[in-house]
């Protein structure tokens, strides 16, 4: 039985046993990884797994189940479990599959899978990780240790079938390489990392570049000072700026909107950010990390402007949240194998501005360049924002000394309006992407 046949079988069994509608997701994946440390192999992991998830509706009640047993018996047990647990759920007038005419997928080669990933030998992964680590270790004499380097390749297939006749499948591949060197001066140690990821093996940055950049990042943190508590302009490098995009996503996520738990509730067509801010969700561009032909309910993906010129244009919705809000799905259903679909995004990005990072430092004059954020101190209900930070102090328009053990705080509503500069350095390194951004009037808490 192919994966598609297994999904179709699960649907047929569920309908035959009394479900009024059903949808089945099957995921199959193979992961191969190697980690090395100080030039020696540390771990090698090779494995494959697969599983199926089923959601059934009985009128407006719904239940779900999952299994890794894709035999006929296993699929039947999954259907029984989903139907049994649906009994205890309650009528939800908005529950259901998408409308039949909403189903479909976008055409064309989306370049989600590269042939070279499946053929990578274990030795090649080990070699890439060793080269990246070696480059980091020799980049600077202050690189005294390493947490290691890792290289991973992944091939995954996703199948989705529903009882309205949708059936689709796609395979995607991924290759990634990362290294975490440790820099030391006296008793003080600092680590940082750098990584590259690509749909193809050949598309990764060179291990030497990854290692060198990681080493530079770790070394420049040495001798970090704790600074005085003060108001300042904060410049977020792209790697941390994308986390702000993540908070915007949480706030425009249809689940947050219908539950009235978002600081962006009821703000459509209002100016919620500085006029230079445009945020797009696009799951249709071939090769991007957030691309797929259909969402996790079988609805075609699309390009959705979320914020244009600082004005909030759209929430991101699946079928359920769209119905709750009297709107149409934006093709953003996302789920693991099981449960009712949640809301996700394609490639969510902040459009690039015109300044280089150096031009932004010069324009800011004095402020903080943040290269790392830790902790979970963000509340999208109120917009309250407070996170641990490390980075470099900007003085005289240039980066000067490293800074650590401080927090930066503000409120997302004000922070979005206080975005004073957006960099030209947008790169599509993942499914959430941002260039360098500068936000004025934030509070640094330190000494």
């Amino acid at each position, binding site marked *: 039985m192919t994966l598609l046949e297994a999904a179709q079988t699960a649907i047929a069994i569920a309908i035959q046993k009394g479900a009024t509608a059903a949808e089945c997701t099957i995921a199959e994946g193979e992961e191969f990884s190697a980690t090395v*440390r100080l030039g*020696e192999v540390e*771990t*090698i*992991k*090779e*494995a494959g*797994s697969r*599983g199926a*998830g089923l959601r059934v509706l009985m009128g407006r009640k*719904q*239940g*779900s*189940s*999952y*299994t*890794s047993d894709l035999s006929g018996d296993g699929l039947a047990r999954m259907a029984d*479990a*989903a139907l049994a*647990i649906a*009994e*205890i*759920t*309650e009528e*939800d007038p908005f*529950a259901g599959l998408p409308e039949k005419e909403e189903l479909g997928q976008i055409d064309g080669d989306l370049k989600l899978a590269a042939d070279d990933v499946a053929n990578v030998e274990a030795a090649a992964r080990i070699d890439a990780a060793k080269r990246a680590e070696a480059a980091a270790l020799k980049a600077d004499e202050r690189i005294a240790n390493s*947490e290691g380097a890792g290289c991973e390749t992944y091939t995954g297939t996703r199948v989705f079938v529903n009882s309205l006749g949708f059936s689709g499948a796609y395979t995607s591949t991924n290759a990634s390489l990362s290294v975490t060197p*440790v820099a030391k001066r006296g008793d*003080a*140690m*600092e*680590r940082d990392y750098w990584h590259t990821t690509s749909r193809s093996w050949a598309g990764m940055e060179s291990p030497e570049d990854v290692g060198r950049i990681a080493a530079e990042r770790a070394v420049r943190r040495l001798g970090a000072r704790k600074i005085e*508590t003060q108001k300042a302009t904060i410049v977020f490098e792209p790697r941390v700026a994308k986390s702000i995009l993540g908070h915007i996503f949480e706030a425009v996520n249809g689940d947050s909107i219908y*539950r*009235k*738990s978002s600081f962006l509730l009821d703000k459509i067509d209002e100016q919620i950010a500085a006029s230079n801010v445009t945020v797009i969700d696009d799951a249709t561009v071939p090769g991007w990390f957030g691309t797929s032909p259909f969402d996790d309910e079988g609805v075609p993906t699309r390009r959705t402007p979320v914020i244009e010129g600082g004005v909030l244009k759209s929430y991101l919705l699946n079928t359920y949240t769209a119905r709750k809000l009297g709107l149409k799905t934006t093709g953003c259903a996302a789920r693991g194998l*099981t*449960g*009712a679909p949640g809301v996700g995004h394609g490639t969510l990005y902040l459009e690039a501005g015109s300044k280089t990072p150096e031009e932004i430092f010069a324009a800011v004059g004095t402020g903080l360049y943040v290269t*790392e954020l*830790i*902790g*979970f*101190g963000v*509340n999208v*209900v*109120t917009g*309250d924002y407070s*996170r*641990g930070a*490390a980075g470099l102090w900007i003085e005289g328009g240039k980066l000067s000394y490293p800074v650590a*053990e*401080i*927090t930066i*705080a*503000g409120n997302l509503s004000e922070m979005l309006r206080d975005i004073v500069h957006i960099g030209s350095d947008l790169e599509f390194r993942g499914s959430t992407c941002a260039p360098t951004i500068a936000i004025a009037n934030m*509070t*640094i*808490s*330190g000494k």
Partner: protein
Amino acid sequence: MPLSSSLFGQKFAITERDLESYLAEALSKGGDYADLYFEYLATASISLDESIIKSATQGVTLGVGIRVLFGERTGYAYSDDLSPDKIRKAARTASCIASGPATQLTAGLTSVEKHDLYKVATLAGDTPLADRAQLVKRADAAARAHDPRVFQVQAVYADTVRHVLVASSDGKLSIDRQPMARMNVSVLAREDGGVPQRGYAGGGGRIGLDFFTGDHSPERFATDAARQAIVQLHAIDAPAGEMTVVFGPGWPGILLHEAVGHGLEADFNRKGVSAFSGRVGQKVASDLCTVVDDGTIASRRGSLNVDDEGEPTKQNVLIENGVLRGYLTDKLSARLTNAKSTGSGRRESYQHYPMPRMTNTFMLAGESDPEEILKSVKSGLYCANFGGGQVDITSGNFVFSASESFLIKDGKITTPVRGATLIGNGPEALKYVSMVGNDLKLDQGIGVCGKEGQSVPVGVGIPTIKIDKMTVGGTR
């Protein structure tokens, strides 16, 4: 439990001879050590939103993870198919980490002596689904009845039972059945169309459905969540800068988990990349601080009869009267550092290899009356509840988010303040602990710890303590 009467013997007909042959396959290229981790995990969860049980899920995952150690190297493979040929294939894949003639196994497997920490008469998963569904319905009703300003309630109930079998090439066999249940309630309250505020509470452990009564009833969790949301309605902006901070008892023990716990995991220390590396015997906290990690407390969320490498868990003293005593080890780090396993080898599932992790981490009670601690503070912050935290183990800098805190003025708890992150440095922060209360409390049992992509359930605890200097990341 003998293998023949365990789920793996009954359902999958796995025998000791099978286990030995898989281990032999794993060591066929000369590894130093191999182990098999069989897992069968059954889960159920029920979610309520807008007073409706909107969704519910149940299912089973199962598989086997096979690990081979060869010097500092680990080979790992897993299979979600327990047929003998698939298990052998995984064993062969893992074996390739080594190179050489096969390692001979000692004959026979001996059952490990394990604790008996899960006092569950009836597994939650064996009770009627309708009874479990009642818990979220009751939580919803109680939160809404608590105060008319409550306008959104989400409640989730979930239970799991994990059957685990670990067989290792040193001739040990352990079989454990690990129950878990928990419920969480999240409440939003609003006043006069103003900004909503969230409150959050929950509890659970290695318990059955009978746990959810009295102090652990859905009503108690719901009203606690509602209370927190309503307190926040009148909160002012949090202060910014260094100040005296008093931590309330219980969940604020997450301070220990972030400030010292992760930094004391032996994998980081073996590699010399932790801020605590090479500091055993040194002073890393004030004399008042004794911190333990204890996986042997009955019914606790972080407790285990045996860890995920089949070793019995222990009570491990991490810091004694301010002096660093030792690290948390798994088998690999113990072998490589000539230490004993502290029973701290844990993993998220059969798809993951084990690493040193915490279980229940807490500070022993001191002698101060909590009232006296507050009275001693002229001006500062009192933190009653926290969200999550994170640590950079190399620099030692850690953060955690206060979700319910209040200003202290002249020894009294006064105005509530909005959420803020607290930041400190692991080997330094606890040196400023100047008072420790006599009111040690463990958390309610909803903690999850993440490390290198693996999540495991943990517990924390702390008595009321005073830290003379800590940085609070507010805006005011």
